[in-house]
């Protein structure tokens, strides 16, 4: 058999190159569930690039990976169901900027947000929500997003939401091959990448295609939709990466404290983002002891 002689194209890019795909004013989908599985290193990289006026659409709940973008002034508007640092407490920049009137928040709930993404993924013009949603005040607050229509089958009133289609989504996984076949070890938040125009996957490890094929039932990210694959070990730090490391609780507490005030947060950004000019420098700054403290599945750590 003759082959065509061409090679399958790798999607692997360095972090710095992938970050250039984010442009001012974009609608950016952020992966992760609160501070777990967030593309944190990617967020720090676009802060270094000075990106502005983003509209952030989290998969669902979001934490550090979004809060740091808010604090660094990269965001114009944010769709929310939840912004917080899990059991650590409030997301400090989100809270401070909201309470001082500096943030445009599209106030949603999980159902509205995820059904908007679902409409986008399914390619339909709107998605109906279950009865009872009219009792949730997000509906009153966002008449442009939640609309009431008549069900053509029963005549009942139904609340519907429009598609939410991010220009670009960035998600973090533990394993992905060079063609974008990614695996989420823990919770499955595949909806975001099906809903977005472009997709960047950051991964703890780029695995050989053979490894993907040997574990293909675990693949949750559809490689065809992925535009760039970026290898970023500790890419979710200080959040958790399922199957790899836990939240760096000490760092998140430090982050939270710094974020309560504009001046102290600027100092935090200087220390961990601007002066640490790339991801390696960031990891150096965090230090080996800090990184090792997150490897607590088997020993040590708060819960062990």
């Amino acid at each position: 058999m003759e082959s065509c002689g061409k090679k399958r194209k790798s999607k692997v890019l360095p972090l710095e190159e992938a970050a250039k795909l984010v442009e001012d004013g974009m609608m950016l989908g952020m992966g992760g569930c609160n501070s777990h599985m967030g593309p944190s290193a990617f967020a720090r990289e676009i802060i270094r690039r000075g990106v502005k006026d983003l509209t952030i659409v989290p998969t669902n709940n979001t934490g550090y990976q979004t809060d740091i973008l808010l604090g660094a002034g990269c965001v114009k508007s944010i769709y929310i169901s939840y912004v917080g640092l899990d059991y650590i407490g409030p997301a400090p920049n989100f809270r401070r900027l909201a309470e001082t009137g500096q943030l445009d928040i599209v106030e949603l709930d999980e159902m509205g947000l995820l059904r908007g993404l679902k409409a986008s993924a399914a390619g339909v013009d709107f998605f109906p929500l279950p009865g009872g949603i009219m009792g949730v005040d997000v509906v009153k607050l966002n008449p442009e997003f939640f609309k009431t229509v008549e069900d053509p089958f029963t005549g009942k009133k139904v609340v519907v939401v429009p598609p939410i289609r991010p220009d670009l989504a960035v998600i973090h996984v533990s394993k992905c091959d060079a063609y974008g076949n990614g695996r989420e070890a823990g919770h499955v938040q595949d909806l975001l990448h099906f809903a977005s125009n472009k997709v960047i996957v950051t991964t703890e490890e780029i695995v050989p295609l053979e490894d993907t094929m040997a574990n293909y039932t675990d693949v949750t990210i559809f490689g065809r939709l992925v535009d760039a694959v970026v290898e970023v070990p500790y890419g979710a730090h200080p959040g958790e990466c399922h199957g790899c490391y836990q939240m760096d609780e000490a760092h998140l507490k430090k982050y939270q404290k710094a974020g309560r005030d504009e001046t102290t947060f600027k100092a935090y950004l200087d220390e961990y983002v601007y002066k640490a000019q790339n991801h390696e420098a960031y990891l150096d700054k965090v230090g080996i002891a800090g990184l090792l403290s997150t490897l607590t599945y088997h020993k040590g750590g708060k819960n062990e």
Partner: protein
Amino acid sequence: MSSVSHANNYCPAEIMVAFLSRDFNDSELGVIGAFSQIPWCAIRVAQALHAPNLWFVCGPSASVNSKYEKLLWSTTDYRLHVGAESRISLDTVMDMQGNPRFIDFGCYGGFQIDKYGNLNMAFIGDQKKPKFRGPGTVGIMATAWLRRSYIFTHFMSPRLFVEKVDFISGPGFMDGPGGREKIGSPSYSEGPRYVVTPIAIFDFDEETKVMRLKSVHPGHTIEEVKSRMGFTPIIPDKVPETEPPTEVELELIRSFDPDRLLPLLVR
């Protein structure tokens, strides 16, 4: 009747766990959210003691029937997957929450709870410049359609228990009788059943749908309960003491919480 031996050296979170666990039935499916240490323990205790066919999903991690050996701070923690029987996607969690065929009960909280059991997790004041900014509605809109819900709190204060919430994230009985029907809540959905706090339990009056004192935990008084609320609940002539955990229940609770996180929860 048999003489059940009750414990007396329990902490507030443990009496809450015991109460909830007794109300979860065999063969049901429950869902819990983030920061849900008390419901997680209650489900594990129920499964061990009287409901071996009870199923549960940890909402944020979407792990199913996790048998992880001990209570963790976060229900998003990967370790809950290590002990799980399966996982479902976030998208499917939404299907399940909105569909009456699936979930029997969920456990929720808020930074404001009003006399009709409505919950606020979003903000107080003007949304564009709120006096207080909370994390957001999250998944507690599900109280609009789950078969039943439980409200639990880690403390009691007049700022938490308010006459009327500033924003409804999780619908309780809305503005009273007929309130849930008006918003299109499905008829199978009974609304909040109990409010479980560190010092007392409440239910809701069948007619007025106003929160009603059901029992007071041993060592606490009705006056204390009233002083820690921003509205006056219905207080029946006779208010019993909450049944403490039995010795067996307490032993089980502690077996699921070897790191003793529960005593740290209630301030």
